[in-house]
């Protein structure tokens, strides 16, 4: 039986970022992954490194997201140096545009609350009016009444990130086991064995990062990861010349020049089918925002399933019953890549999660006993 210092289940953005961080520290890691056709949230993301919408009412999540955004430049330059793959990180701020006074009022209130909750940690934002926005964004539609901007937002080539994490992992000596869904698991404190891809492998520590697959794996390791699928659809246009200096929350341009249009949220279970009516809504909002988008061809579109915890916040946990078992679950695998590689992985390597992650434990979902 092959033994490793760590097993990471899940080869998506979360698993590979954690695996990369562990392997970079010189630890032997087995990264276990399923086959080519799978739910694969990591192939369906938008590519934002986004801060401004994260953690309303949950300042710990706001701080974790900020920490990840701050860790991103180092991760990106390190991956580029290690693999030669351009990650295309840009962090010059981002905009969330509003198409009605109601939206704008709500957005303003959200920003104010984020700032209040940030306390001494600080949360810098600005509300911009149509004139300021039009100066920044060519061809802005009349329907835009304002927007929020923070300096912390940005975007990156998320597929390049995914490729680079895999390549970096391999370069660090990591062992990648694709087409190896877990068929059997044995757990004991600091002693884990799994059967995957016809092989049994063992390690004293294990990280569950299998996205939607975690829900069924977690109980085997004394963990709970109540995540559900939430569908999102994206439209992708033909390549164009550069359009904007910074990304928006639901419209961004990739380094190749294609323009991605989102966003949507549907509760449809494990259904990755596309819904033309939802696609139409996305297209309508895009055209209201920038009327000239109407002329562009949509070359492809997709639907993917977000890994969604009940309150939208990540679930990070370590098993009490089986010490050495950890889990990471979130729907922001791109934004949190910095944190996963450079903060979470070192914690796991040390054998315990930092108290700063305690609020992210699944225990928060336990119904409290009557006071």
């Amino acid at each position, binding site marked *: 039986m092959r033994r490793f210092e760590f097993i990471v289940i899940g080869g998506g953005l979360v698993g590979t970022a954690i695996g990369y961080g562990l392997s970079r520290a010189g630890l032997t890691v087995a990264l276990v992954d399923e086959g080519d056709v799978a739910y694969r949230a990591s192939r369906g993301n938008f590519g934002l490194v986004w801060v401004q919408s994260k953690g309303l009412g949950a300042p710990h999540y706001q701080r974790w997201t900020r920490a990840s955004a701050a860790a991103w430049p180092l991760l990106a330059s390190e991956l580029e140096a290690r693999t030669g793959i351009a990650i295309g990180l840009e962090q010059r701020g981002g905009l969330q545009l509003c198409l009605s006074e109601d939206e704008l009022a709500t957005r303003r209130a959200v920003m104010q609350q984020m700032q209040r909750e940030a306390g001494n940690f600080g949360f810098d934002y600005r509300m911009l009016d149509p004139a300021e926005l039009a100066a920044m964004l060519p*061809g802005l539609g009349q329907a835009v009444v304002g927007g929020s901007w923070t300096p912390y937002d940005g975007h990156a080539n998320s597929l390049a990130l995914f490729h680079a994490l895999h390549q970096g992992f391999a370069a660090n000596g990591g062992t990648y086991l694709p087409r190896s869904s877990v068929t059997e698991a044995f757990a004991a404190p600091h002693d884990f064995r799994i059967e995957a891809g016809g092989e049994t492998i063992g390690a004293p520590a294990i990280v569950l990062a299998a996205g939607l697959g975690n829900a069924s794996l977690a109980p085997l390791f004394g963990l709970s990861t109540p995540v559900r699928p939430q569908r999102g659809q994206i439209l992708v246009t033909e390549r164009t010349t550069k359009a904007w200096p910074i990304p928006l929350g639901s419209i961004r341009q990739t380094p190749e020049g294609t323009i991605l249009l989102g966003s949507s949220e549907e509760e449809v279970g494990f259904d990755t089918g596309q819904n033309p009516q939802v696609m139409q809504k996305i297209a309508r909002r895009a055209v209201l925002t920038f009327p000239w988008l109407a002329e562009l061809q949509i070359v492809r579109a997709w639907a993917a399933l977000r890994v969604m915890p009940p309150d939208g916040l990540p679930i990070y946990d370590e098993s009490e019953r089986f010490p050495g078992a950890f889990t990471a679950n979130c729907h922001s695998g791109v934004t949190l890549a910095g944190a996963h590689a450079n903060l979470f992985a070192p914690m796991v390597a040390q054998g315990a999660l930092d108290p700063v992650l305690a609020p992210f434990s699944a225990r928060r979902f336990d119904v409290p006993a009557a006071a």
Partner: protein
Amino acid sequence: MFRPRPDSREATIAVEVEGRTVRVPAGASAAAAVLVAGLASIRDNPADGGTRAPYCMMGICFECLAEIDGVPNRQGCMVAARPGMRIRRQRGARSLAIE
């Protein structure tokens, strides 16, 4: 370069290919007009800058993307040539013309 075969139908449709007038018979596509015009290529591929020309002529390969009557990236083989049509090479990614 493609030429009319002997005994071909009369080339009654006059179009402009990169500003030059070219004649093709009714039923010919814009891509056919580009081939009659003898252009070295129909587009520059935005991915690697390589010059490309029509390959399949049946709407599958998308190599024949051209700017037709001001609209970029149209499949030339799927657009019927019409009198006065203006056809230009597609130079890489679509240029945004934002008012």
